[in-house]
């Protein structure tokens, strides 16, 4: 990159030098514990290593096996189901809650902080607790029955069609607090004067919200959407592990869990690495595509 003449001055040289020094520790950490392992995962994906004995290179056969495995396609489909259904839920719920809090009610602060409470519990703990909650003869079903909602008292974890929505709701429950705050912060950065002119024109609450607030928090919304999309590929493990074991069959197995199963239950480490590579690529592609939406909007502004 060509630098303007001014940046070749003494101050800039010194800054550049110090810049490297300041950034160095972070880079070292990431190199050692993230980048080098990632590279080894890439390399190992071309082997048939079982995690213990010799490492034999097998070319791309792991990948061909993966794509030929019926179960793999179900698993990746599950991830996409989580993404397509989860992302709207995980984005709209906090948006709505933020809107409610933003409407100027008393005690917004209290609600804001209490909604964050689930973060103190680890996701694996939540999985264990909710698993017993939603058992066929568990508390929630008993509650539903007592409220006369018998149709809701089903075997929640008994099939993919019910457990996936359930897990989505639980993640929503655990995470909407922080997303709400992100939205609120975005909303509070909107200059109030914008609303004044709208009020003068007689705009009601709905119009104000949809025509002014929403568009102005577009970037924030995109940010939340991207976080949620990434989460649907990288943050489901603890729940699947504790609640459903990926079952029944492979109906709730997601990529992360499949990697775990192949690596640590079936001793097929090379295969698991190949799965990880695929997962990584998918996530990178999707988030890059989503990021491009962000940039375009900035430019239009």
């Amino acid at each position: 990159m060509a630098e303007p003449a001014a940046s070749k001055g003494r101050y800039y040289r010194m800054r550049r030098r110090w810049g490297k020094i300041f950034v160095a520790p972070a880079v070292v950490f990431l190199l050692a514990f993230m980048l080098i392992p990632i590279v080894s995962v890439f390399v190992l994906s071309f082997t048939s290593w079982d995690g213990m004995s010799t490492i034999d290179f097998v070319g791309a056969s792991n990948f061909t096996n993966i794509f030929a495995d019926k179960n793999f396609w179900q698993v990746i489909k599950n991830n996409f189901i989580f993404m397509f259904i989860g992302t709207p839920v995980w984005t709209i719920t906090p948006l709505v809650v933020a809107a409610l809090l933003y409407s100027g009610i008393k005690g917004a602060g209290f609600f804001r902080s209490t909604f964050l409470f689930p973060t103190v519990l680890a996701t694996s703990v939540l999985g264990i607790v909710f698993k017993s909650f939603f058992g066929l003869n568990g508390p929630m079903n008993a509650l539903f029955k007592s409220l006369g909602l018998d149709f809701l008292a089903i075997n929640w974890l008994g099939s993919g069609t019910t457990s996936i929505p359930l897990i989505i709701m639980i993640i929503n429950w655990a995470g909407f607090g922080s997303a709400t705050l992100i939205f609120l912060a975005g909303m509070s950065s909107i200059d109030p004067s914008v609303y004044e002119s709208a009020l003068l024109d007689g705009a009601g609450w709905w119009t104000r919200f949809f025509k002014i607030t929403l568009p102005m928090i577009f970037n924030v919304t995109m940010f939340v959407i991207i976080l949620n999309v990434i989460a649907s590929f990288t943050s489901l493990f603890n729940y699947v592990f504790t609640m459903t074991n990926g079952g029944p069959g492979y109906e709730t197995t997601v990529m992360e869990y499949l990697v775990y199963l192949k690596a640590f239950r079936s001793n097929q480490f090379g295969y698991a690495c190949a799965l990880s590579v695929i997962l990584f690529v998918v996530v990178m592609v999707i988030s890059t595509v989503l990021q491009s939406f962000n940039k375009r909007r900035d430019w239009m502004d």
Partner: protein
Amino acid sequence: MFKAKRVLALAAALMMCGMTAACGNSGTTGDTSGGNDGEKTKLVFWNGSYKTVDDTGTIATEDLIFNQTIKEFEEANNCEIEVVDQTADNLYTLFRSSGVAKNGPDIAFLWAGSFTNDYREFIEPLDSYFTDEELAEFPNLDLCRAEFKPEGDLLGIPTDVSTVNLFYNKDAYEQAGLPRDAYFETIDELKDACAKLSAAGITPFAMIDGNGYASAWNVGATAATLYGPEGIFDLLPGNEDLTGEKFTKAVTEWVEFGKEIVENGWANEDWLTTTAEDVFMPLYTGEAAMRFGGSWDCWNLYTELGDSVGTMPIPSYNTSDEYSGYIVGQIANNLVVTNYSKNKELAVEFVKACTSEDFYLQRYEQEGQLPGKVGIDMSSVEDVNPLLADCYALFSENKNVIGFDSVTSADAGAEFYRQVPQMIAGNISIEEGLKLIQEKNVAVGATETEE
């Protein structure tokens, strides 16, 4: 002021970092014991099952047999034994990764069968440390040998054996007009009993098969009568095709029974998908009558139900089978010594201490686990849990066949657990499911080994 505080904080952080590295490395690691530098030799023991703390509050910690044995051994040999409790999930993950890094334990408590065999990379063969007489005290050790061959290296010493049984609530049986001391020879008799129980308003089974274990036990039973104790090794990876006639028959017999159970409502509604243990509560209250399980369940069942619980082997699915009358019984767990241990002899001595007849008897009494040696006189134990005595008697009849999932590859086993409940639910055909399972029944690592 500000500046000073910040600098101090940073300095403290760096100091801590230095301290951790220093502290961590000094002697208190889980590494295999170092040489004698004037300090005691240390053995690291990864414990998967021995009780080190009693959660029922009835036995004092020092009196637990494992703790006692440790103390005596430490004193007699001037060494230190560090026990690391591991749960099943972690144990194998860690055993593998620490084996690669060679910083794992000296002794580990592992499931017998493929779970030990798969890790033979890291295990010290024990044949040279035992005499033939010593080894004769144990049941058939093929399962503990490399690749289950009689000439394979001996990898582990049995800590306990197990049987797979059917347990029933005697009171519930009585209510339905069934004998309190029941023994069903055939599955048809069991089905009749189910009908009677149903008619009396009792759910015949309290089951969980979300993890595929109930299926595994039953197919273990059907496979046992079809293959017999030697034939079962045909199912080793690379040998018999699981989609072949024989194994398909074994699976089909159970799947059809499973379907009948679903059709007639003979078990809790969610049995095919749940893994929650609370489904067993009706068994304790008498609303449900039976469950499949094994000798490892005797302790809990007897605690909850006392003399109201009885057991019998899983009835024969097909009395015309060659090995009809054989049950699923095998060495359940074994102790292994790692081949990177720096104190192998001492480790083996400790293994011997933990596999003495007295140890087995005490463990039987305190933990309810069947001894790993045959021919022990159980009458010397007070308050014998009759269930356990029954199981041990069954095992001693010596008509034992290893559970098939200890023989097939871990991957195939895992696929089995996943697919068979689906077969019963009708989501996948038996052929298709078996095909998926067979695909995964491949040997782990390099099988054409030098051994």
